[in-house]
């Protein structure tokens, strides 16, 4: 039996008094795409950030390919050392809503720097590799542009290339197209579609219900910090039995996805 790529087990998260995640358990199998949907404030970002240990769950545990993330397993549960955490995290690439490119480096620099400083590659090897990765997202010509000289869609594709250059087995996306003008979302979604078709394990927080329906192998529906649903798109869209899900879909469903109904 192989371990799931991501195993979230009874995760709860509190910010002070506010309970943001309530006893969430879910698995993402290797090579599958799970799309996280749900109303604003339902805890989608928090759950995704817990999967990268950018947020620390109040209780519960998360395993990445069978290895504990953030805390060690066993009776002497303790926080992982920075080096241990880095090692487990190295399997995870993360793409943020705000791109988060480093403004003082070109697109190429953004992709190459971790290859050099973390992976210890020579400058020229790192830049070759970075260039190939930028080519893959269609941005070879923009390699020497700074983030401020790129459109939002281009910046987000650089951010994806930056994450992919480090060879993650899992990619986490937090609303990767929400900060983009509508005409730029397509180019980013296409890169993600391509990635999914290559068998990357992905968790995508998204409001693009059409994308979730067509690319997601599973759709997870969060509401008020509870995971109400984690099932195939067909199951979720064809027969929404949960009243909260039905209500959410009524508000968010675009025409494309409503045709699936």
């Amino acid at each position, binding site marked *: 039996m192989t371990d799931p790529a991501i195993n979230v087990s009874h995760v709860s998260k509190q910010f002070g008094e506010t309970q943001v995640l309530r006893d969430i358990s879910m698995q993402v199998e290797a090579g599958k795409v799970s799309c996280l949907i749900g109303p604003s404030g339902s805890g989608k970002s928090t759950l995704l950030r817990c999967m990268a240990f*950018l947020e620390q769950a109040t209780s519960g545990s998360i395993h990445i390919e069978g290895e504990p993330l953030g805390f060690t397993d066993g009776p002497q549960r303790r926080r992982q050392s920075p080096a241990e955490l*880095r090692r487990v995290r190295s399997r995870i690439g993360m793409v943020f809503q705000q791109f988060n490119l*480093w403004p*003082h480096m070109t697109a190429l620099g953004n992709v190459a720097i971790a290859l050099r400083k973390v992976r210890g590659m020579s400058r020229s090897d790192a830049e070759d590799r970075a260039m190939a990765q930028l080519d893959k997202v269609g941005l070879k010509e923009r390699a020497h542009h700074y983030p401020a000289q790129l459109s939002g869609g281009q910046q987000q594709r650089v951010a994806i290339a930056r994450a992919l250059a480090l060879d993650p087995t899992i990619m986490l996306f937090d609303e990767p197209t929400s900060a983009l003008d509508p005409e730029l979302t397509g180019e980013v979604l296409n890169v993600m579609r391509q990635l999914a078709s290559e068998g990357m394990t992905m968790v995508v927080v998204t409001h693009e219900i059409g994308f979730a329906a067509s690319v997601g192998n599973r759709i997870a529906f969060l509401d008020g910090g509870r995971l109400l649903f984690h099932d195939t798109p067909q199951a979720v869209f064809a027969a929404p039995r949960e009243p909260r899900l039905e209500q959410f879909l009524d508000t968010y469903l675009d025409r494309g996805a409503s045709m699936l109904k």
Partner: protein
Amino acid sequence: MTWKLFSLLLEASLMTILVSAVSILMGLVMAIVLSGLRMSGSRVADAGAGVFISFFRGVPLLVQLLLIFNLLPVIGITLPSLATAIIGLSLCTAAYQAENLRGGFEGVAPGLIESAEMAGFTRMQSFIYIRTPIALRMTFPALVNEAILILKASSLVSVVGLIELTKMAQNLSASTYRPLPIFAAAGVIYLAINLVVAAIGQRAENALPGLPGK
């Protein structure tokens, strides 16, 4: 005001430029280290850096210079006046530059640090390759401003026996009994240097990629 006198002033202004430039750069390095200590997560390091900064910002530069000048021989160190002047000025500017940088470091968006973390950078690597360059760019105008302040403050280092522009002007006015044209000339030279610094700063700022709003 003869050419002879003016050329002596110009020559002394080279010393002003040397002392100031070296102090600014050394102060910058120290300010980055101080910022690192403040953000290291160690309370002792943070407190130490805090005390250093308060002291050098709170005590007049002239008093600092005289303290260092008189203290070093007591603990058995004799340094040339140039070295003493540079130590005094750079310690002082380090404290101010650390304060300037603080705003820059605080302005680095948390997401940029998180993406460094996800890319596998250690805390130290993130500080060196991500936070510091961004903080420096955001506070670059303050750095140029500090350079100008230090150029002017360097007139105080004559108290440790260094002959720079102001000291030379004092010496010449004492020997010629014509202070007015000599101090006027010295003032013009300071002004000219600072205009050049400001212009270089402006050009560098425009050339720097990744400044906010660009």
